[in-house]
Structures are given as C-alpha cells and as structure tokens.
C-alpha cells in the first residue's frame, strides 16, 4: 500500500508530468509565469482545486449517472474555482488582479477535468485526493521553473527582490526584454521537454 501511495504521489511530478508528458493544462500555465509570485499563487490554486475536485467527485462517483457526469463535474469545479477566486480577492487583491482571467480559467484547465475522468471516477476518495494534489504539484513545478528563469533573466529579480547586483548593470549587463514576452514561455517549456526527454529516453516519440 505504501508503495502504491508513493507511486501515486511521485509519478505525476516527474514521469507522468501533466505539462511536459501529457501536455495538459497549458492554456492557463504560460501567461502567469512572468513573475515567480504569480506562478506560486497560481500553482497553489491549481493544487487546491485539483485535490478537492478529485476528492469530492470520488465521493460522489457512485451516485452520478454517467450521462450527466460532465455537467456535475463542471459545477463542482466551478464552485471550487469561485471559492479560490473570492479568497484571493479578499486576501491577495494585487496578485488576483495580475492573474486576471487565468484564475477563472482553472475551470477549463484540462488537468482538472482529465484527472477527474481518468482517476477520481474509478478510485477511493483518499487516493484521488493524493492524485489530485500530486498532479497539481507536477503542474506547479514546471510553472515555478519557467517563472524562475523568466523573472531572473527578464527583470533581474526573484519574488520582487533584486538578485543581479547594480555593478553588473554598470558594467553593461542588460535585462533580456524578450524573456518577459509570451513567445519565450513556449520556447522555455520546449527546452524543459527537451531536457526531460534526453534524460528519460523511454518518453521520446518515434
């Protein structure tokens, strides 16, 4: 049983990472990675929503008729997302403004629906909760890596604190403005996939 829990927890983070391997949930992930802070808040929101949505739908799995399950899933997920959004509005208003529509778009994040369909509908609530949390964490990991490079290279800061010293700028160093713009997020994820697949040869496509 322990081995199984460990597998459920670790698999989505590396070997079956939702972003780089399954290519799910890209929609909302790229735009929030300009700054590390936004990426952390977004990751946390997604972890909470996937975990709880998996848990709730796993509890309901025997009572939902198969034909209307998508609507039920959407309602549960939408409720959780609205809760997260209202909490962020109350306690972290500037970050909520910065993430703008992307918090609302967690509803259509393929990771949430994908894990409900693939895992929660066929497993016990506790295992589903772990699976949801781990998938959220796998998503968050990529987000944080991308945001780390984008904020460091693009603004020279991390979490708003200056990392690259003034003397560098005086010596002629300049921030790379391109990294902050949308295209670099895609290219960075492409590079992460490249590194991961070079390390794990079995993931390569023929």
């Amino acid at each position: 049983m322990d081995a199984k829990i460990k597998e459920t927890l670790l698999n989505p983070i590396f070997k079956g990472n939702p972003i780089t391997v399954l290519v799910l949930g890209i929609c909302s992930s790229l735009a929030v990675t300009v700054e590390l802070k936004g990426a952390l808040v977004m990751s946390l929101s997604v972890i909470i929503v996937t975990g709880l949505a998996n848990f709730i739908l796993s509890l309901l799995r025997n009572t939902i008729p198969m034909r209307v399950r998508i609507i039920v899933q959407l309602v549960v997920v939408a409720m959780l997302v609205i809760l997260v959004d209202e909490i962020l509005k109350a306690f972290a208003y500037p970050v909520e403004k910065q993430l703008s529509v992307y918090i609302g778009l967690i509803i259509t994040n393929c990771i949430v629906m994908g894990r409900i369909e693939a895992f929660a509908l066929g497993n016990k609530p506790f295992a589903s909760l772990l699976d949801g949390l781990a998938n959220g964490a796998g998503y968050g990991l990529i987000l944080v890596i991308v945001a780390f490079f984008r904020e460091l290279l693009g603004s020279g800061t991390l979490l708003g604190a200056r990392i690259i010293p003034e003397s560098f700028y005086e010596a002629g160093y300049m921030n790379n403005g391109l990294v902050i713009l949308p295209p670099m997020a895609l290219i960075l994820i492409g590079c992460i996939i490249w590194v991961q697949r070079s390390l794990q040869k079995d993931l390569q496509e023929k």
Partner: protein
Amino acid sequence: MEYINLFVKSIFVDNMIFAYFLGMCSYLAVSKNVKTATGLGVAVIFVLLCTLPINYLINGFLTNNPWGVDLGFLSLIIFIAVIAAFTQIVEMVVEKFAPALYGQLGIYLPLIAVNCAILGGSLFMQQKEFAGLGEAAVYAAGSGLGWFLAIVCLAAIRERLQYSKVPAALKGTGITFITVGLMAMAFMTFMGISL
C-alpha cells in the same frame, strides 16, 4: 471605424493563442493535419460568435439587475453553463440536420465546451467592459478568426515538419512548442498596430 480597429486588433495583436495562450490544449492536440484543424477552427469561431453576445447580455443583467444586488461572482458558473449548454445544442442540431458534417466534427464539438478560448473570450469581454452588443460580437468574431488562423498555420507547418530531421528528444511535443514560440514572435510584429 472603431469596429474595424477592434476586429483587426483581436485577430493579430490580442491573438488568443500567441498573446494569451488560450485554447492551447486542443490547439496542440488537433493541429496534426490541416483538414481537421480547419474543422475545429470553424467550430470555435461559430461557438465564440454565439456564446459571447449571450454572455454579454447575461453579464449586463447580473451586474445591473432590478433587485440592485451585484451578482458578479455568479458570472463564472453561468458562463460555463451557457457554453456547455450551447455546445450540446449545436452538437444535437448538427447531428440531426448535417450528419456528414457531424461525422467529421463529431469528436471536436464536445471538446469545445472545455476550450479555454471560449471561456477566455467571455472573461475578457467582462474585463474589457464593452460598450455594446456590437462590440462584443465583433470581438468574438475577431478572436475566433485569430484562433482559426493560428491553428491552420501550425497544422500546415507540422505537416511539413514530419519530413525534417528533428533531434530525437525534441520530436513531437518539444518541437511543436518551439515552433509555436517562433510563430508567436512573428506575430509580435503586429504589436501596437491601431487603425
């Protein structure tokens, strides 16, 4: 003139894919050949064009209703319900009256309900606070067309990409991401355009 400006802007400058990454999942999954990509692109334009004005009216009612209560927090759940219901209706109508088209589009129609570009369109509409129904409809048409353009271009590139030598670890997903990144860079030249 304002309409044309908004239309061009929403196609090129505020492109759903290259500027906001909306609808990425189906964008990457369904862009393997031009024919299916065109089908999905047309379906997205159609659904956006129909749901966005409906959601605009609903949003206006929620924030400015006869009871004087701000029901804005309900907008998210109502938007997604409208979109899901609408795709369901479209699916049934197409199945009944155009079975051939249904056979071609079948799998992609239900996919649209969870396409971020559709919900994203409604959420941006809410954020941009359009002045009237016309503006909302023009914005819907423009962003739908932008999405269509993006997916057809990528599909065409990927068809060619199959014949080129790509490093083993980059094959498939990796090179697609980098291609989209380069396309997004090309689209950045439109930045700041206004008529």
